[in-house]
């Protein structure tokens, strides 16, 4: 296993990429196979199930050379992978919703131990009330647990980002677990055209595989793993602080590494994705709407229509949600006079969407007041259509003349 080597010379042109029609879950599985993990552990849960079924099939068909552990539950899935990672293996799993909740204890431990495990969250709304459909509530609920979290917009971005995630996680300056978040239902089951990178090109991108000695246990190089720390005496408190500061530093470093790795991806494979924050038609815009994940496609179509109708509106999309891309957002916010933020989950404490709540902190650093508001839509499988985004655009435009704070708008309340 290896850490990222950006010095690898980049060939001029990638080999011809196979064009396929796949759902988001299959795209993720294909990306995992191309990244050549040593070990995966799985437990199926809607809407993630077809992802791990595809992974299991790739292994059964001999198209992926990895050990697969069919564990008895998600707590075991991640615990098993921790053992694999500590043995130097490249490891992967996927989960969502209740599975992620059941996994929470080892989930917290993974980032503390700096294990570069990659895990897709096929996002699902929270229960109760009972629901099995998409929403960002599961990933948002664990946004403060020290994992890097990136959200994908398209099926192609799922495939490409899944591969990139391993390189980000294993980078010497990061050494953190990474979640690739893909929207349950619309992205997990949405079937569209993708270009499948060639294995040799992905191998060149990933670099030579070697044991990751920053993680792996070896009797010849003894190291303490997860020692007892904390308390109020001796070395306890300072050791604990060292762990936490190290995690925060890895998170901050990941912002640069994510940008570098996306740039290398663009050069090798010809597909460029905004690594942290994407601006769409923001130049010349008076105000903007902000999105996350697969809702963004419909939002872009709405922006085009609104621009054609003379409205000066642009779009800001977040890809990297954890760590929160503060500096990139400040650059985008410098261009606008009002902002509407669309969340696919609920922030119970602030009576707004969680992304809006985080954004308010960035707006404070902007040094000038711009009015903003929160929209919540697409919960539990509900749709956010071009029509919904026109309502978002109109309401955000009104902030320019009437900046009074208002309640969040629940987009599907009357659907």
């Amino acid at each position, binding site marked *: 296993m290896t850490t990222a080597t950006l010095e690898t010379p980049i060939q001029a042109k990638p080999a011809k990429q196979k064009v396929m029609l796949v759902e988001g879950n299959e795209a993720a599985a294909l990306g995992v196979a191309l990244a050549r993990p040593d070990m995966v552990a799985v437990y199926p849960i809607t809407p993630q199930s077809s992802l791990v079924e595809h992974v299991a099939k790739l292994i059964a068909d001999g198209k992926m050379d990895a050990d697969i552990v069919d564990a008895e539950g998600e707590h075991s899935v991640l615990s098993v992978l921790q053992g694999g990672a500590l043995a130097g293996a490249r490891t992967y799993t996927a989960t969502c919703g209740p599975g992620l909740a059941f996994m929470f204890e080892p989930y917290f431990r993974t980032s503390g131990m700096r294990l570069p495990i990659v895990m897709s969250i096929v996002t699902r709304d929270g229960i109760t009330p009972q629901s099995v459909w998409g929403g960002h509530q599961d990933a948002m609920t664990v946004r403060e647990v020290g994992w890097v979290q990136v959200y994908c917009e398209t099926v192609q971005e799922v495939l490409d980002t899944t591969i990139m995630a391993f390189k980000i996680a294993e980078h010497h300056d990061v050494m953190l677990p990474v979640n690739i978040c893909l929207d349950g239902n619309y992205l997990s089951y949405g079937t*569209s055209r993708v270009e499948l990178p060639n294995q040799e090109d992905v191998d060149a991108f990933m670099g030579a595989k070697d044991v990751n000695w920053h993680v792996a246990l070896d009797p010849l190089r003894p190291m303490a793993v997860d020692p007892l720390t904390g308390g109020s005496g001796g070395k306890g408190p300072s050791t604990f602080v060292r762990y936490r500061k190290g995690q925060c530093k890895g998170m901050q470093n990941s912002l640069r590494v994510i940008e570098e790795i996306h740039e290398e991806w663009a050069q090798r494979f010809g597909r460029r994705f905004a690594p942290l924050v994407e601006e769409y038609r923001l130049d010349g815009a008076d105000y903007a709407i902000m999105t996350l994940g697969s809702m963004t496609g419909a939002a872009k179509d709405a922006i085009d229509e609104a621009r054609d109708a003379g409205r000066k509106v642009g779009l800001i999309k977040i890809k990297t949600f954890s760590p929160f891309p503060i500096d990139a957002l400040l650059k985008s916010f410098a261009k606008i006079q009002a902002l509407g933020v669309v969340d696919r989950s609920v922030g119970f404490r602030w009576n707004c969407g969680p992304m809006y709540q985080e954004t308010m902190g960035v707006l404070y650093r902007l040094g000038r007041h711009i009015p903003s508001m929160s929209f919540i839509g697409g919960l539990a499988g509900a749709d956010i259509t071009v029509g919904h985004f026109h309502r978002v655009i109109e309401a955000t435009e009104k902030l320019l003349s009437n900046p009074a704070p208002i309640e969040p708008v629940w987009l599907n309340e009357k659907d």
Partner: protein
Amino acid sequence: MYEVRFHGRGGQGAVTAAAMLAAALLEEGKYAVSIPSFGFERRGAPVVSFLRCSDREIRQLTNIYTPDCLICVDPTLAKTVDIFGGLKPGGTLVQATNKPLAEVALSPSVATVGLCDAIGIALQIFSKPITNTLMLGAFARTTGVVSLDALKRSLEDSDFRDAGLKQNLLALERGYNETAVYQIPQRAAA
């Protein structure tokens, strides 16, 4: 952008049909996205799936509310579900039925109708009422949006093998050949 909504019952392959049609459109160099509706799908329950196609990249990953075309792969569904909701004026219905046009439920938005006795043919080919590939043939015949050849090629590239592939290729062919297409002029003008 051309938008299709599939109506069927769990087990008839409406979701698979949308994905197969997307693959065939991809064969023809078009962009296509299909999305299933989400529910506790079970055999016999009404299900819906969606397909968009375009010459340009398709960005919106949403359900379809104002389709250009309805493909209803089950003959009894229109009695229990409003399959016509949101159909664009001048729209198309491709319906599995053994009834004549006069006895088929329509809405004022329907201008073109393709009728195929898909259940009857499916029972001959598969000995089961699985109508999805038949209705894709019927769709190709009714609309010309996709060619029969592209549908066949996408089927050959799919997971179907041997006898299953042969049966489904035959189903495509018979769906295409045994579909009666009707124009309803006053509606086309509306």
